[in-house]
C-alpha cells in the first residue's frame, strides 16, 4: 500500500541534536543570559541618562549611584537595611501565619469565604496613608505599625493562594485519607499542604515581593530608620542618588526573598519534574 524507503530518516543514538541543544539552552541560557541582560539594563540606563542629559536630581547615572552606595555602605546603610529587614521578617511571619490559617479555613468552607471575603477585600483596598492617624493612635509610630502594615500586605496573596490550593486537592486522595481515618492535622500535613504547595509557593512569591512594599509604606507614615526612611530622607536632603541606593537595596531584598521562594520551590516540588 505504501512504499517505504527505510534510509530516509533515522533517529541517531543519544546525544541526538535536539536534546543536546536543549541541554545547552537550559544550562547556559540562564547562567549566561541573566548577567548579560543585567549588563544590558545598566548600559541602557547609563545611555538614557547620557542621551536625555538628565540632571542627577532626576535620574543619576549608574556610576553616581555606585559611588553613593560605596560611601553609604561605609556609613549607616546597613543599619537602615537591618531595620527594614526586621520589619519585613516580622511582617512576613505574622502575615503568612494568618494567611495559612485563614486560607485553610476559607478554602474548606466556601460559605465562610463568602462571609469573610468582603472584610478581607476591604482591608486590602483601604489606602494605609488615609488612615495613618488611626494607626498611630492604635499602634504607635514605632516598629509595631510598620510590621502591621507589612503583615497586612503580605497576608492577602498567600491567603488567596492557600484557598485555591486547598480547593484543588485531588478528591480521590481526600477519599484515601478519609478511608485511613486521618485526623484533621494529618489531612493537612500529609495531603492538603503538599498538594497545595505549588499554589502556595506562587502566593509566597507575591507576598515576599510585596513585603518590601509593605515595609516602605509603613515607613512612609513616619519613621526614623529603614530604607523607606532613606528614600524620604533623600528627598529631604535633595540627594537623589541616595534614593536610588535605597531603591536598589529594596530591590535586592525583594530579589533575595523571591530567590528564597524559588529555592524552596526547587526543593519541595522536585517531584513535579
Amino acid at each position: 500500500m505504501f512504499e517505504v524507503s527505510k534510509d530516509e530518516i533515522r533517529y541517531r543514538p543519544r546525544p541526538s541534536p535536539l536534546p543536546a541543544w536543549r541541554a545547552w539552552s537550559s544550562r547556559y541560557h540562564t547562567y549566561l543570559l541573566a548577567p548579560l541582560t543585567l549588563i544590558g539594563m545598566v548600559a541602557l540606563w547609563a545611555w538614557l541618562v547620557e542621551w536625555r542629559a538628565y540632571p542627577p536630581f532626576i535620574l543619576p547615572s549608574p556610576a553616581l549611584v555606585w559611588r553613593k552606595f560605596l560611601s553609604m555602605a561605609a556609613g549607616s546603610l546597613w543599619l537602615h537595611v537591618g531595620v527594614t529587614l526586621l520589619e519585613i521578617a516580622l511582617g512576613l511571619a505574622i502575615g503568612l501565619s494568618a494567611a495559612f490559617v485563614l486560607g485553610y479555613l476559607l478554602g474548606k468552607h466556601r460559605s465562610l469565604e463568602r462571609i469573610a471575603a468582603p472584610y478581607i477585600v476591604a482591608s486590602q483596598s483601604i489606602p494605609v496613608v488615609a488612615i495613618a492617624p488611626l494607626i498611630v493612635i492604635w499602634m504607635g509610630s514605632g516598629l509595631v505599625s510598620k510590621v502591621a502594615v507589612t503583615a497586612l500586605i503580605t497576608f492577602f496573596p498567600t491567603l488567596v493562594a492557600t484557598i485555591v490550593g486547598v480547593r484543588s486537592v485531588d478528591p480521590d486522595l481526600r477519599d484515601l485519607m478519609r478511608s485511613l481515618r486521618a485526623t484533621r492535622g494529618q489531612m493537612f500535613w500529609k495531603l492538603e499542604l503538599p498538594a497545595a504547595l505549588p499554589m502556595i509557593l506562587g502566593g509566597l512569591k507575591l507576598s515576599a515581593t510585596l513585603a518590601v512594599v509593605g515595609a516602605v509604606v509603613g515607613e512612609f507614615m513616619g519613621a526614623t530608620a529603614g530604607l523607606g526612611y532613606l528614600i524620604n530622607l533623600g528627598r529631604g536632603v535633595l540627594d537623589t542618588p541616595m534614593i536610588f541606593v535605597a531603591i536598589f537595596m529594596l530591590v535586592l531584598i525583594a530579589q533575595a526573598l523571591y530567590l528564597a521562594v524559588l529555592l524552596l520551590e526547587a526543593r519541595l516540588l522536585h517531584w513535579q519534574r
Partner: protein
Amino acid sequence: APISTPRISNATQTFGRETVRLGAGFIPNVQFAPIYVGLEKGFFQEEGIELELSYGFENDYLKLVGVDEYQFMLGSGDQVVLGRAQGLPVRYVLNWYTRFPVVIFSKAERNITTPADLAGKTIGIPGAFGASYVALRGILEAANLTEQDVRLESIGFTQAAAVSEDRVDAAVDYAVNGPVVLRLAGVPVNEIALDDYLVIPSNGLVTNERTIAERPDLVQKMVRALQRSIAYTLANPDEAFAIALKVVPEAGGENEAANRAVFDASLSFWTPKPGQTPGATDLADWQATVEFMQRIGLIDAAVDAESLFTNQFITEE
C-alpha cells in the same frame, strides 16, 4: 470636642524631666536646625523637657494634637485655620517662620517674575490643597487672576523635575526646595513669593486647648526653649549648621553645599520682620488669612481669629 484620652498620655517623668513629643515635619532636615540646636545646647533640658522628635505628615499631626495624642507640633497658620474650621481644638502659640515659605518658581528664561506673568501659563502644583494651594491662590489673587486664567497640572511632589524638563512653565514649591535644586543644577530661576502680596502666619509651634488650659507651664517652657533655639541659630548660623549636620549626616558630604544653600535660604525665613516681636503673630494677619481662605473655598464659614493663636507665651528678650 470631647477628649477623654488620658492627660499627656505620652509624657513620662524621667529624672525630674518630662518627655514631650514634638511632631515635626516629614523627615530629618537642616530646616529643623533650631530644634537640633536646642537639643544640643540643652535649651529644652534646662526647661525640664526631654524632647522627642517624631517625623510625619503635618495634617496627621494636627489631628493627633487635636485629640491630645501629641501635645505639640510644628505647623503653619493656614493649617491651624483649617483645623479650627473642622473643630480641632488646636492653637498656634509661637511663630517661627516669619514669612510664608512657598513660592512659584520657573526657569529664568521664561521671564515669569510677577503674578501677572502667570496668566495662560501651565503651573505645576501638588494638589488643590495645602500650603502650596494657599500660596498659588494668594499669588494669583495679587494679579486678579483665578484658576481659570492658568492651566494647573497636579504633579505631586515632582516640581523640580517637572520644571527642569519643561513639563510645566512654573511650579509651586517651598522656596528652599525646588528653586534651590534647580539653581544648584545651574539653572537660573525666578521666584514669586506669596509673602510679598499676602501675609499668612507661617510655620510655628502648635498645641491644643487642653494643654494650654491644664499645662500652661509646659507650653511656656516649650515656647521659651524654642525661641532661644531660634535666636541662637540666627546668631550662630555656622555652628547651627554644623549641629544640624551631626543630626542629619546625610546632609553633609557631597550634599553639604546643597544643604547649606537650603539652610541659608531658610535663615531669611526665620529672621523676624522689621518691627515684629519675635515669635508673635498679628490678629490682623490671622483675620486676613481667615477671610482669604474663605474666599478661595478652603473653609466654609468664618473662624474666630482670636481662637487661632495666642501671644501670651511669647517672652520678649
